[in-house]
């Protein structure tokens, strides 16, 4: 697939918004859209073209309970841990209040810690045998976030993308970790499949692909670089 053709981008964007782009192609297009603003902009154009069609449907009033459940969900997402009524006996009230205070502080601290992203550590550096480092790949300890940092200006090839793969041991199929940035850095949240692949992989590889990445979900172009994955993370 030649992803650099504006007409093709537009056609994919139109079928994406229409809903007929499905399965792996849809997921690939979503990744591409979030990485490239000009792809996202075609999606926005098609949304404003087609969505008035959906606005022509007669509105359907939701059941009364729907709003209540939305309110509960946003409240529990936003609120600090709920306070409880203090114990009935006056003698216990001070103790209960004290314990509650500790619980709130501890709960708040745990909640705060859970929302703090874990630090990223470099797990692989990708380079040609003699050349400078082209990308460094960073991961957090839970393998939830991956950041790829382009370090050399040579990391672009017109009309192509470089795609990163986790190489499982043995004969397992490579698992895509997404397209690498030509410059700057790109950070993404990993899927369960990507996390599992990284947990067992000993190496990562970079293949040359059409813009936006492999259209098949498996490497289609030549594998240009292979790098060891640091197992200590």
């Amino acid at each position, binding site marked *: 697939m030649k992803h650099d053709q504006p007409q093709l981008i*537009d*056609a994919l964007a*139109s*079928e994406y918004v*229409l*809903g*007929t782009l*499905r399965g792996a192609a*849809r997921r690939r297009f979503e990744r591409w859209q979030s990485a490239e603003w000009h792809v996202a902009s075609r999606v*926005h154009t098609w*949304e*404003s*073209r*087609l*969505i*008035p*069609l*959906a*606005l*022509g*449907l*007669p*509105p*359907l*009033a*939701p*059941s009364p309970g*729907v*709003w209540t*459940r*939305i*309110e509960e*969900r*946003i409240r529990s*997402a*936003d609120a600090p841990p709920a306070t409880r009524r203090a114990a009935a006996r006056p003698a216990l009230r001070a103790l209960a209040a004290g314990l509650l205070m500790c619980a709130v502080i501890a709960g708040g601290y745990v909640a705060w810690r859970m929302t703090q992203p874990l630090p990223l550590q470099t797990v692989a550096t990708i380079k040609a045998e003699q050349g400078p480092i082209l990308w460094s790949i960073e991961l957090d300890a839970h393998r939830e976030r991956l950041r790829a940092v382009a370090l050399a200006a040579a990391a672009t090839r017109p009309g192509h993308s470089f795609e990163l793969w986790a190489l499982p041991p043995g004969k397992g199929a490579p698992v895509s970790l997404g397209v690498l940035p030509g410059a700057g850095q790109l950070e993404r949240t990993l899927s369960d499949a990507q996390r599992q692949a990284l947990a067992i992989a000993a190496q990562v590889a970079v293949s040359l692909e059409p813009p936006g990445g492999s259209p098949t979900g498996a490497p289609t172009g030549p594998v240009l670089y292979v790098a060891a994955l640091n197992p200590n993370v």
Partner: protein
Amino acid sequence: MHPMTAPGRRYTMANGAAANSTDDELARLIQACAARDRQALRRLYELMAGQMLASMVRILRRRALAEEALQDVFVSIWQRAQQFEGGRGPARIWLMAIARHRAIDVLRSERVNLYREADVEQLPEPAMEGMGDWASAGRSAAALARCFEELSGEQRRGIELAFINGYSHADIARVTGEPLGTIKSWIRRGLASLRQCLES
């Protein structure tokens, strides 16, 4: 009657409460949500939930499933309100896009079950007689209605089944009895004609 050759009808592209609430008001409400104003979310719900649910029930075919997805949509609006950029386009489009994406995501995961269940929601046809209220629907909706009517019957029906009902190419082939390749080409050509007409 062959589903692809139903007589042409007039399309109304927007109506109801959503059309009366201006995009400016919706944009202000989304910004207020970003500032954690729950009343603003409530007001957005009053203005948009009916329109969103109509579209989601069409795609998901079961009200309970659509209402659950509608909850996700409003929680998502609450969480993503800060990402809304006024300059990107009309607020109503942004809101409806979130609702549609959610419905299609749920459809992907529930697909098999949907086809097995016989008790899908019985829905009225989306057809509406008479031209829409273009003043409130906006210029882009009027242009879409005009261009939509210029499509051939097959192209229009294909796009409608895909967009409104959430049908895949294969679903449309099944309900129309036409080969998959024919359906793909109807839709591809229909979208190309729409683009050409809307850009002219």
